[in-house]
């Protein structure tokens, strides 16, 4: 083949060994190095590093792989490898295997420095170059910013200066960032602009770890692979939708990050909006990443807050109480929070989706800390049957039918419907039909981070929200954040309960009730 023809066909070059029908073949990432900034932080140690080991253990990392840590500590490469080993042993999902670890350890490097230190970034560039030569990482680099967003500008600037951000022919540079993506529409736009001046949008991977969860991906399988659910997935049959993410933990020690941010920005803007988008979107034309994004963006652009906000939203702040047999302090007494903090730890909002499919169906989103238990679920609550040929006494105990997607824990799906109580009289009561991932597939599902990090290395963007999605989410949320900032304070609720009274009233006004998840 002539060189000219070779160059022309490089873009559409087809690997003769690859075949779409070859479903056994795992997709192994190409040669690359992952650089973690903030490698001493919790996120890196508990999630990112263990996930990288798990990927190696599953044979999905390339033989030519390197892991580079960047932090202030004075570590040598060996010190760093030992720290990584500790995290791996403590937090990895898959069992520890020495042979796997030995290979991973060979590729561990550490660069010591601060984010304003030009020489440190010079060293980083040098280290990466050496790795390309020694380990054959091929000039492909993923920069994982496991650092607070206030440090993004400095690091991005440095990467730019060190010439590490530019995509080059035949190799790639990608950046991975974690939430929060700003704190309102303006700041989100600013951040996006900043990131995009250094990395083009197709090289930016925003991690919303919820999207890496098996159950969340299963929403699409449930909706679009089955004939059973689609016909009822609309306003003819669905009365309302409740999306809940509850946590039982408090905020002790997280004041620095959380104070002034609050539950709505921390959880609703990203996780719950994404869950809403997947639940409410139309069927994508194909599962190509861009088609999926098109549908998500489309539905998010049709979402708005239900008015008046006084009646359709609620926020709260936990006070001291007994939670699961343990006495816990209120937010105002938590370390790191000011005594008059008006940061909300519980937020509930009502959204309308202005499409033919969903007109008139409210979507209730709620999240909170120190609630009854840790649970995330999406519940479609159906309308009651238009006519019940039973006496009222027979259906006293019959509630509304519901389809609940349990995102965590105990991942699965619950279908709730009425059934006759065994006896000579006709009496109908609610029962559950249960599908549990754990019993249908005994194999543990991979951690969300494994899936997402592998997708970054493969350059597969479907599970990452793009600019437009982030900005639409803020556009939806901003009015209620402004409203809350201007009016009053969060309502107190006792730790260990399901939120403030105002949240319950918010639903009761329309004759509905929150499910107890």
């Amino acid at each position: 083949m002539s060189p000219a023809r070779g160059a022309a066909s490089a873009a559409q070059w087809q690997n003769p060994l690859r075949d779409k029908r070859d479903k056994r073949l795992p997709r192994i990432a190409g040669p690359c190095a992952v650089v973690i900034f903030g490698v001493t932080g919790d996120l890196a140690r508990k999630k990112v590093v263990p996930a990288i080991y798990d990927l190696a253990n599953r044979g999905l990392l390339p033989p030519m792989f390197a892991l580079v840590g960047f932090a202030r500590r004075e570590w040598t490469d060996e010190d760093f490898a030992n720290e990584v080993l500790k995290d791996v042993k403590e937090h990895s999902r898959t069992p520890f295997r020495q042979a796997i670890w030995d290979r991973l350890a060979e590729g561990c490097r550490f660069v010591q420095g601060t984010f304003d230190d030009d020489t440190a970034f010079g060293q980083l560039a040098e280290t990466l170059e050496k790795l390309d030569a020694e380990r054959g990482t091929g000039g492909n680099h993923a920069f994982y910013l496991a650092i607070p967003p206030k440090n993004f500008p400095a690091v991005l600037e440095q990467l730019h200066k060190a010439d590490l951000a530019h995509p080059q022919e035949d190799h790639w540079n990608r950046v991975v960032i974690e939430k929060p993506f700003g704190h309102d529409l303006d700041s989100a736009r600013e951040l996006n602009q900043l990131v995009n001046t250094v990395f083009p949008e197709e090289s930016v991977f925003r991690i919303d770890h919820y999207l890496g969860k098996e159950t969340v991906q299963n929403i699409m399988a449930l909706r679009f692979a089955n004939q059973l659910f689609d016909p009822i997935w609309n306003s003819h049959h669905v009365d309302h939708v409740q999306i809940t993410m509850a946590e039982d933990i408090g905020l002790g020690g997280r004041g620095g990050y959380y104070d002034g941010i609050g539950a709505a920005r921390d959880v609703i803007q990203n996780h719950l909006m994404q869950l809403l988008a997947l639940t409410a979107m139309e069927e994508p034309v194909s599962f190509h990443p861009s088609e999926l994004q098109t549908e998500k963006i489309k539905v998010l652009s049709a979402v708005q807050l239900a008015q008046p906000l006084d009646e359709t939203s609620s926020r709260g702040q936990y006070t001291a109480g007994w939670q699961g047999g343990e006495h816990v302090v209120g937010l105002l007494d938590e370390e790191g929070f000011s005594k008059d903090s008006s940061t909300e730890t519980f937020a509930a909002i009502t959204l309308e989706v202005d499409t033919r499919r969903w007109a008139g169906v409210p979507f209730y989103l709620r999240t909170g800390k120190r609630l009854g238990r840790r649970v995330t679920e999406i519940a479609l609550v159906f309308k009651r049957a238009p006519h019940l040929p039973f006496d009222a006494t027979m259906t006293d105990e019959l509630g509304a039918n519901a389809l609940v997607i349990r995102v965590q824990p105990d991942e699965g799906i619950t279908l709730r419907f009425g059934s006759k109580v065994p006896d000579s009289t006709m009496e109908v009561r609610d029962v559950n039909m249960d599908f549990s991932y754990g019993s249908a597939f005994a194999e543990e599902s991979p951690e969300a981070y494994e899936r997402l990090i592998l997708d970054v290395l493969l350059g597969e963007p479907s599970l990452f929200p793009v600019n437009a999605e982030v900005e639409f989410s803020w556009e939806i949320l901003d009015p209620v954040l402004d409203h809350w900032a201007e009016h009053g304070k969060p309502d107190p609720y006792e730790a260990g309960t399901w939120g403030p009274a105002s949240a319950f009233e918010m639903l009761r006004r329309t004759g509905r009730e929150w499910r107890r998840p």
Partner: protein
Amino acid sequence: MIVELPGTSATAINKKLDELREQSGAVTLGRVLTLVIAPGSDLVLEESIEAAIAAGHEHPSRVIVVMTGDADAAEARLDAQLRAGGDSGAGEVVVLRLSGPLAGHNSSVVVPFLLPDIPVVAWWPDIAPAMPAQDPLGQLALRRITDATNGADPLACIKSRLRGYTPGDTDLAWSRITYWRALLTSAIDQPPHEPITSALVSGLKTEPALDVLAGWLASRIDGPVRRAVGELKVELVRNSETVTLRRPQEGATATLSRTAKPDALVPLQRRDTPECLAEDLRRLDADAIYFSALEGIDRVEYL
């Protein structure tokens, strides 16, 4: 828990199974398939059950082992052994031994134990029928798994699979080299983007996985594919580089070398039967790539 039921009937076994299930708390609803194992002899019996139990971790199954007891006995006789709870991992295991006139009718004995609706997989751990899909047991199954590695003449076995092939057939020799294929494929993903002009597969003579690997390469590339007996390695030749994946015969670490690039080490142990079986149970549709790899074996040059 292991329960022996000598000289019994399908009805009695099913009743006992229900009883055991209630005691051990295992529920049939969680099963995703019924795995029927047909070992040719006691030699591979325990090993096969162990593999099935290990694979059952990923694919909770009811495992039915059916084998010939005393074929020459005058009276038809069915002996059964049930394993549930701790002795069977997540699933339950039924071992059936058929004697006398019953020996030829293994499929009819198995039918009452197949779980409703869910797919049936048949697995012959050593001696497989020439046409698995025509075999009475194979006719019950959606997927039919053979293992040329345990055949009397592994090379002849893997070569004969093509003649007996029906969509839904697969051989564990094929899943044994999946990871080799994945590593080679991702190596070829890298530049230079040139076609592969020739390939060499070398290793033990009695490792049919290598023959099917060579067949796969022959079906994918334009150029000669050679199979040699010698050190364990695969070589892919492109115009400006050669990709070599080699491993010491008994080793657990392979070396991936490319022209003008640093060598890379990669953990690459020989896959054991449970792992291969688990992979084969993952998809129950026809494996078209396996079929073309079988066809490719004919084009391989044996050195």
